[in-house]
């Protein structure tokens, strides 16, 4: 417990590279190399520009989830929140560009309310985060149905343009993800509040004794999370020009997966935003890679599950223990070999 944040850093350089970032970077490079060799079409420019917006969306959701997981929490209202944002920005304007800005304000307003609700329930009333956010998720889906009646509407041309157009050959959704990453890094690493936020995640007891406002920061984590899920929901409404009311469902598990693959501990502590974003690229490319391989749907699902299991194992298995067991094994083998070699000798 005590060394969980220290252990994730490799020391020695001015720019510390976390173990999580290193692992996920190497994995991603290997994945792209494999893609280029085994399924070249999965790295074709057209495929990449199709994959990147989804990677960007996943990155933003992942960053939101990371801020919550840093506080040893988890947010299951990701799905409802994204769906609601997508529904608000499509249903309210119904194609009218002039109503886009009020719709955006409305969706971020709802995000503040829902985030506040989650925060109060979990930070102040000490509800279990799984139960509380599961409840809010149902509430959000109720709103989705009430607003949309299950009827998709077409995205306004303005939003679609902003999100799907390219700037310098790169889909704009990528810039949104990059900007979000920079903001999160700046907040966590360069502001006093961000530093406090991290130290509370690492040990709320110590932080509490030091006089930090533990409950407020804990509650705020859910608000930051909601704001980012809402941003992701708005972007998906632009990418999918006619989003239905369950667009967020596909992001619940991956949002947790990218955080874990990026090396942030589910027990809380230091958050690794860059690694989380790289993990989002990794998962999205894995998706396209398996699609391009042309294997059937069942295998695709299995590969994704396996990647997740391996990713989680990298961080959660106590490798020093495994190493110590393994180092004992060769000596045992050695004895065996000796015994085996005796009769023949």
């Amino acid at each position, binding site marked *: 417990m005590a060394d969980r944040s220290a252990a994730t850093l490799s020391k020695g350089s001015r720019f510390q590279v976390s173990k999580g970032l290193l692992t996920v970077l190497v994995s991603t490079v290997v994945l792209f190399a494999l893609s280029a060799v085994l399924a070249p079409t999965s790295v074709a420019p057209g495929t990449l520009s199709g994959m990147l917006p989804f990677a960007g969306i996943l990155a933003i959701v992942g960053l939101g989830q990371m801020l919550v997981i840093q506080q040893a929490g988890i947010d299951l209202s990701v799905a409802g929140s994204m769906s609601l944002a997508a529904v608000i920005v499509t249903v309210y304007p119904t194609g009218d560009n002039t109503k886009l800005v009020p719709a955006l304000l409305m969706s971020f307003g709802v995000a503040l309310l829902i985030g506040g609700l989650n925060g109060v329930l979990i930070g102040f009333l000490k509800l279990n985060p799984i139960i509380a956010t599961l409840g809010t998720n149902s509430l959000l889906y109720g709103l989705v149905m009430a607003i949309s009646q299950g009827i998709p509407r077409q995205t306004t041309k303005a939003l679609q343009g902003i999100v799907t157009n390219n700037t310098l050959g790169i889909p704009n959704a990528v810039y949104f993800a990059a900007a979000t990453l920079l903001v999160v890094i700046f907040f966590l690493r360069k502001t006093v509040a961000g530093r406090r936020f991290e130290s509370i995640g690492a040990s709320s007891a110590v932080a509490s004794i030091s006089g930090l406002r533990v409950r407020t920061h804990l509650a705020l984590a859910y608000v930051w999370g909601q704001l980012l899920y809402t941003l992701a929901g708005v972007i998906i409404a632009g990418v999918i020009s006619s989003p*239905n009311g369950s667009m967020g469902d*596909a992001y619940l598990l991956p949002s947790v997966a990218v955080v874990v693959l990026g090396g942030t501990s589910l027990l809380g502590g230091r958050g690794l935003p860059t690694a989380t974003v790289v993990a989002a690229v990794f998962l999205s490319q894995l998706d396209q890679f398996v699609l391009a391989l042309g294997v059937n749907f*069942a295998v695709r699902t299995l590969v994704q599950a396996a990647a997740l299991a391996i990713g989680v194992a990298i961080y959660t298995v106590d490798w020093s223990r495994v190493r110590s067991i393994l180092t004992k094994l060769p000596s045992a083998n050695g004895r065996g070999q000796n015994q085996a070699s005796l009769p023949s000798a």
Partner: protein
Amino acid sequence: MIRRRKIAAALSAAAVASMLLTGVAAGVASPATAATVPSWCGPKKITMGLTDGFGGNNWRLVTTASARNEVSKCPSVTKLLYADGQGNTTKAISDIKGMVAKGVKALVVFPDAGKAILPTLRAAYKAGVVTVPYRVDPSGVNGKDYTIFIPGDFVTDGKNWGTWTKKNFPNGANILFLSGPAGNSQGLDERKGFESVLGNGSGAYKYIGEQPFEVTNWDPALTQKVLTAAIAKYPKIDVIFSDFGPVMVSSLGEFTKSGRSIPALATSDGNILGCFYQDNVKANKDFKLMTVATGNDHVRLAVQQAVARATGGKVPAATAFKAPVFEDSTTGKPHPVQCNRSINDWTFLSAQMSGADQEALLKK
């Protein structure tokens, strides 16, 4: 004077007759105006029930309204009860039980939960209610588990796509087929249909991508990913078959992004798709569109079957709903591609119910 009166009488009789005749003719196109009682409506007065497993989307809203409209043509149905299972199988079951308890004599059911709903259907049927499930197969037997199941004829949809492809690509084509969840029976039936016209893929007509179909779960995001991968992988895609046309709209732009023309598309109709076609046909030289009706009127046949049996009317001969071909951009027959920009994108212009009526329904 008398002669003049006779002439007047004859004239007015002729006028009435012609009005009746046009009324009947109009009745085919727009049944709401039909004044006569249809043959499937018998004399016995009944209360009727209509249940949905999940009623919360636009397709269902239009379908339910179509059912109400069909029922309203028969004055013998004195009361129509409706319940929406809201995607909850337990609620769907208790909805049906509740209707039987309330004394409905005819019951039309959209059995979303499939087999899970079968015992409840059987119980209703045994209780003497004319029970007519439609569209989703609850996997029972007519006359044993329910009165009659009115399936959709997806094999015919597939045949229609195949026939159109053969006509427009007489020398063969590369065909990509997108359907819903893995192994869904609708997709498999459609495949049966087009294979009967185009062969099993070993001849001039090749099936590319995952077989028997690319899994999209009818989800726009997954459809987009699948199509992006397919575009990169296959330099030549001549025709796309899809059993949910409107969901294709956000994905077809991927062709444009890759610098290729949107290919021919054989699918099901939707206002959003028709408008997309009209907006993009000029810039995409290979873009052709053919649609079969999405099938909101399927429920009308189920209602007719149920009401006829319960009221003592003439039972319709049709026992399966064959979705007609709706649009064809190459011949304009039976309709050219339709787009109505003044109403909701997610309306279905192939339905008997007018686009404006659907719009009013969606605005409620």
